[in-house]
């Protein structure tokens, strides 16, 4: 538990969070591991967890019937994986596959959602941080979308 | 090739010395390029002469004997067009022009002045920066090819008769772009190097002229081999003349000249001043570069875009516009290829094309580019405005867009057109 607390406290994503809130987070956290090739979550699954990557690499993918899944993002050490737990319908929109062995901290989304409802200050802090992540991913995705390398 | 008197020279020759004595103080200087300075040549009485209007034929004859092609104003297609001439009879004697936005009309004068008009549709650009010229040709040789350096080089020097002050300024500006920058344009240099410029100052202005506000006229400043002013009245139909170079001095020496009287000089100055005063259009250049750079999204651009046809007339008639494009051709066998250069305009759709599309697709962007380049970017690129105030772009715009009006509107924050 102590190790988890330190990791969470020192993680850039949670920087500036009151120790009271850090403790709340720790209460919802656990260490997890995935082997290369494992699916961390699949499209449509209930989204009740998000992950703080400690090691390894994850590919976020979308699959289509006629061809192999298309990787739309890869995440590595230090990154946050998953925000679908935060907003209804709490369902994963993509699949995430470990492309290398992964060690991560899993945060119980259901548990956190309850705590955020009870403590709106905590809720606001969490939302602020996820809003930044979503913004960064959206910007990056837009650049991928417009296909800057194409010759129109 | 050329008689010694007309060859470009910097040595002090006996002929020059005697001419000096005759005119008392005329100092021979170098000629022809934008950097030419009128060393010691003022508007004072001692350095100017007069000659009868008919002596103009002697002047033309001297140039022809000197091996020049004489280019001067002629009447063609209802306009004043610079063309080869050999006689004063083809000069537009007794004609003047009436110009307004989108309007050009020749009218009869009451006198028989040879240079009683202002400017025709084209300046001298057609001769110095040709509309179409071959850059190189090549012949296939096995898998590779050989460049043939067989371009027709002009070996006949040109003498321009009737260069307006604004046109002198325009030539100086094109010199700066095509000769005075990092790379020297061989094609322009070949034509410009031997060219002899005889300026004739305007004694009238068209309604579209604004050279006075641009500081380029109507009085001719540097760059001409000789500067003439056409006079009439009690002294008869005559020209006041002063040399601007040793070549010009030598040319004037071949005419029957008499020293100018003080009243001649005053009459000439008054005529030129009157031409300046008569100008109704002007561009206020104060801070204009910043205004254009800072108003990239000014609503006036949208407004002018509703009128501008992007027809490129303005760039074709503008004496300082220099943009060109290239075209590759080959014969049917594919063994002989040529690369040609021709005038181009930033108003065309393809001007700014790079793979995938053009950068400036809208008329708004293209008009803005032209005007910003002409009045602002030119200053950063070449040290002065690119506009000489000749007014051709106003006259020859089919919808009568007036660059002076557009400047005023941008300056005043105006959003509505005045057409």
């Amino acid at each position, binding site marked *: 538990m102590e190790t988890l607390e330190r990791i969470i406290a020192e993680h850039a994503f949670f920087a500036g969070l009151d120790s009271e809130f850090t403790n709340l987070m720790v209460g919802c956290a656990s260490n997890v591991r995935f082997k290369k090739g494992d699916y961390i979550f699949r499209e449509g699954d209930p989204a009740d967890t998000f992950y703080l990557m400690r090691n390894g690499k994850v590919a976020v993918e979308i699959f289509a019937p006629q061809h192999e899944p298309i990787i739309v993002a890869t995440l590595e050490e230090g990154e946050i994986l998953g925000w679908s737990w935060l907003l209804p319908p709490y369902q994963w929109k993509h699949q995430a596959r470990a492309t290398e062995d992964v060690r991560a901290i899993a945060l119980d989304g259901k548990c956190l959602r309850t705590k955020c409802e009870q403590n709106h200050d905590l809720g606001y802090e969490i939302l602020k941080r996820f809003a930044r992540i979503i913004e960064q991913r959206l910007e990056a995705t837009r650049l991928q979308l417009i296909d800057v390398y194409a010759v129109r | 090739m050329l008689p010694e008197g007309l060859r470009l020279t910097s040595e002090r020759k006996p002929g020059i010395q005697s001419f000096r004595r005759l005119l008392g103080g005329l100092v021979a200087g170098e000629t022809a390029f934008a950097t030419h300075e009128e060393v010691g040549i003022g508007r004072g009485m001692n350095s100017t002469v007069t000659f009868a209007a008919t002596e103009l034929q002697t002047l033309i004859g001297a140039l022809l004997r000197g091996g020049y092609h004489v280019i001067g104003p002629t009447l063609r297609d209802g306009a004043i067009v610079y063309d080869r001439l050999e006689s004063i009879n083809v000069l537009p004697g007794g004609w003047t022009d009436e110009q307004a936005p989108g309007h050009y009309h020749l009218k009869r004068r009451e006198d028989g002045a040879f240079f009683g008009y202002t400017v025709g549709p084209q300046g001298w650009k057609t001769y110095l920066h040709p509309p179409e010229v071959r850059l190189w040709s090549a012949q296939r040789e096995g898998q590779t090819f050989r460049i043939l350096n067989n371009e027709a080089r002009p070996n006949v020097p040109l003498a321009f008769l009737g260069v307006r002050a604004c046109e002198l300024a325009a030539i100086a500006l094109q010199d700066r772009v095509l000769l005075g920058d990092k790379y020297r344009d061989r094609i322009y240099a070949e034509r410009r190097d031997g060219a002899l410029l005889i300026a004739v100052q305007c004694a009238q202005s068209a309604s579209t002229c604004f050279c006075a506000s641009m500081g380029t006229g109507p009085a001719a400043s540097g760059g001409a081999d000789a500067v003439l002013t056409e006079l009439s009245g009690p002294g008869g139909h005559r020209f006041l003349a002063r040399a601007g170079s040793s070549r010009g001095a030598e040319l004037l020496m071949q005419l029957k000249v008499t020293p100018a009287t003080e009243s001649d000089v005053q009459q000439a100055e008054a005529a030129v001043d009157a031409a300046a005063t008569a100008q109704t259009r002007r561009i206020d250049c104060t801070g204009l570069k910043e205004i254009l750079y800072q108003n990239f999204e000014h609503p006036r651009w949208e407004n002018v875009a509703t009128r501008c046809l992007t027809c490129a007339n303005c760039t074709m008639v503008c004496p300082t516009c220099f943009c060109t494009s*290239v075209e590759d051709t080959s014969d049917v066998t594919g063994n002989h290829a040529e690369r040609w250069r021709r005038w181009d305009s930033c108003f065309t759709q393809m001007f700014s094309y790079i793979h995938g599309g053009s*950068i400036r697709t809208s008329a708004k962007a293209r008009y803005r580019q032209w005007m910003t380049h002409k009045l602002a970017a030119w200053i950063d690129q070449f040290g002065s405005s690119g506009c000489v105030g000749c007014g051709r772009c106003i006259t020859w715009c089919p919808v009568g867009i007036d660059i002076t009006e557009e400047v005023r509107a941008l300056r005043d924050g105006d959003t509505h057109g005045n057409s």
Partner: protein
Amino acid sequence: MLPHPYVVREVSKETPDTFTLRLEPEAGVNGSSFQPGQFSMLWVFGVGELPISISGNPSEHNQLVYTVRSVGQATNALVTQAVGGGIGVRGPFGTGWPVEKARGRDVIVIAGGIGLAPLRPVVYEVLQNRERYGRLVILYGARSPRDLLYRKELAAWARQRETQVLVTVDYGGMSWRGHVGVVTTLFKYARLKPSNSTAMVCGPEIMMRFVTRELESQGLDRNNLYLSMERNMKCGVGSCGHCQYGPHFICKDGPVFSYEQMRPLLEKYEL
């Protein structure tokens, strides 16, 4: 000025639409040296002339190397030249990357797509004069794995000391084990010291806009950040007027500019 006749000695395929040509001057023609970042005007007999960045090793004299993407009639004619064919070369023209100014500093090379080609001479320069420079960081992005240039060299560069090479693609298939995401997503993995770095960026203009903005937010000074710009060119020597970008002629005032110079212009639509 007239083109010098060069002969195609080698054509190699980098990607489905991109080829590298190695040219040597014809016998009796003196080869020319170049600065990293400069370009030549390449003339294809009877077809046209194109500005192409030199992508070879500046210390290898008597040859010129170009990496060309086939996007139209003229580029297609260029890449389909057979070995032994002739190409007319004018140049080199333009300003080069600030390799002198970068001495003693970390060098950050950021490329998108074919943008790696004009930057490759910088990499050669740094690796061949290692002691003159600090760390070398190469961040490279392309549309998909098969669009990556110089893959073998990228791997070789990654093995050099004090050199970090990070590659990403916009779309990856299952066989791609590397990063997926635009090149700005690589920044967090790169060990950058913005206060002592000189960054050189080349790629599609949109990519350069976002990369430079991101670099600046990471503390890189605008005068230590350089881009290579591109516009329509007909002459390469500042007289046809086509390549103007604001007051600059890309062919002679550029193509390499500092971000300080470019920033007010990059944001202007249809400049």
